[in-house]
């Protein structure tokens, strides 16, 4: 019994440990560690900028995505959903680099600066909002009609139905969208450097330009760590906020 419970954990852990050891060794071997230690203040500034890009654009994408996705399921707005889905899908299908370039080229036409943190945030936001809109919409649509009918018949008003029934039951699907969006944003954030958005992309692109693996890895490894931590944090959040009655079976305690 114990051996059985032990081996799957081990199977998962071995590749993770192996990866960490190899990356840590490369990190040290190419001098990324030494470079970071020498430029510690800059490291913290770039990390801070990077986290700011990710968190702010994420917050905006979640707020707008969930609201828009919800709105699309409301009576009177449902005929707009194909148009809205079309727009967000096109945005998502543009390659990351293209989104950054578009922000750079397009924002000046609106009288805004195409350079700096704000255009970077706008680009990241637009690039990541689609999965949240789509999953919120699909998640609410998928709530059983019987459940809605029961809620209506019991005398819940539309607001109560939305907040107590529809959104809680759509939450696992919405959280799936949030995790996808996070992966997209974390992956695209280094490109923000190209339009003056700052962040750890600075070291990555500098390293590439100078063909210095050390500087490149000094930027790339923290970016990867942020991606992993963000996903782990979201998985944890999902376990807490999603009702145990609708969590995936694997989370369930055996009855």
């Amino acid at each position, binding site marked *: 019994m114990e051996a059985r419970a032990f081996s799957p954990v081990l199977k998962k852990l071995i590749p993770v440990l192996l990866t960490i050891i190899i990356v840590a060794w490369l990190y040290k071997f190419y001098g990324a560690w030494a470079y970071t230690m020498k430029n510690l203040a800059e490291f913290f500034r770039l990390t801070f900028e990077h986290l700011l890009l990710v968190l702010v654009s994420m917050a905006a994408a979640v707020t707008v995505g969930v609201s828009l996705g919800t709105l699309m399921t409301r009576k009177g707005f449902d005929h707009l959903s194909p148009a809205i889905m079309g727009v967000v899908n096109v945005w998502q299908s543009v390659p990351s680099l293209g989104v950054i370039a578009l922000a750079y080229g397009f924002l000046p036409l609106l009288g805004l600066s195409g350079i700096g943190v704000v255009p970077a945030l706008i680009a990241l936001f637009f690039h990541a909002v689609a999965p949240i809109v789509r999953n919120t919409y699909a998640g609410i649509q998928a709530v059983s009609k*019987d459940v*809605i*009918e*029961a809620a209506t*018949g*019991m005398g819940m*008003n539309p607001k109560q139905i939305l907040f107590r029934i529809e959104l*809680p039951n759509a939450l696992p699907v919405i959280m799936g969208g949030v995790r996808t969006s996070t992966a997209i944003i974390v992956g695209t954030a280094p490109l923000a450097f190209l339009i003056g958005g700052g962040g750890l992309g600075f070291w990555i692109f500098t390293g590439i330009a100078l063909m210095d693996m050390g500087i490149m890895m000094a930027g790339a490894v923290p970016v990867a760590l942020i991606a992993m931590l963000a996903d782990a944090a979201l998985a944890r959040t999902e376990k807490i906020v999603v009702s145990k009655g*609708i969590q995936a079976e694997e989370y369930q305690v055996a009855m």
Partner: protein
Amino acid sequence: MNIMLKLENVTKIYPGAEHIKAVDELSFDLPEGEICTVVGPSGCGKTTAMKMINRLIPMTSGKIYIDGQNVNRLDTIELRRNIGYVIQNIGLFPNMTIAENIAVVPKMKGWDKDRITERAESLLELINLPPEEFMDRYPRELSGGQQQRIGVARAMAIDPPIMLMDEPFGAIDPINREHLQNEFLKIQDKVKKTIVFVTHDIDEAIKMGDKICLLKAGKLVQFDAPETMLTEPANDFVSDFLGGDRTLKRLNLLKLKAAMRPDPPVIMEEESPEKAKAMLSELKVDNLIVVDAEKRLLGYVNHEALEKQADEVSKVARSTDSFMPASSSLKDGLSEIFTHDLGYLIVVDEDKKVLGVLNTEDIREILRR
């Protein structure tokens, strides 16, 4: 008797289908504490009729009164909270525990926490699910039958005077359905709700209803007690709908008490076999029921049994399983008569005291009435 629910010329015409009256001038009165089963072929408007009561579907014309109040003059949300509602597919909220599901309406009504918990526990006891085991479980951990019972409990949470049930046992397998029906009737005996119960199953309508409301193409064909409908169907449509076996259906409805012959010949256990023999020939019967001083059933004796030497009949009495409580249906009784070789059924009360006997002749007699 207080009329709890009154429908007056209620009509529904759906937009886009103006030439069809989904419900056509439907009127009936339902007294307090009775179950009205609404039944009819599919598309007859039975669900529409029910949903107009809690205004899930707005009526085109007519009036509905609950306890004298016109439902159209009440706030929709408040109206619905005061009516228990059970649907076919249950619709338990999967994100909430059983306790939370039951608490939904009480919470909206502003009950305090202790009162809600107390109520949820007593409701679970009422439906025979131990509260300590079920309060904190989620709907998906329950069987279909258990979920449906929770659905009923949830609808009764604030003790509403009226309940609407839309094919509540329709999605349950036949064995469990019968069990749930019986259990529900037992609960209804205690709580005495006024219930509108939609079903497509005529047997269920007969079994569950104090009144049956039979609809055809939106029109009321007959509104009567099941027994009346079975004995005096209003027209051919009704007798067709009830089925060719409608006389047999009455077996389900009638109780042993109504058909039995009371005070059958009995003999006390300590009497002598000679007296038993004398009684058998005097009364011209084949068997005598043997009872104790409290008139409780012990067995029976016949000529063959009395051949043996004994000083009292209890020594030679044969035991029998051919007995049933007076509250059982005639159908069960008839089946029991055919099962045992005694040839008739001894009707007893809860204490096994002999009340009467029943044979196939008696059943034929009551069905011919």
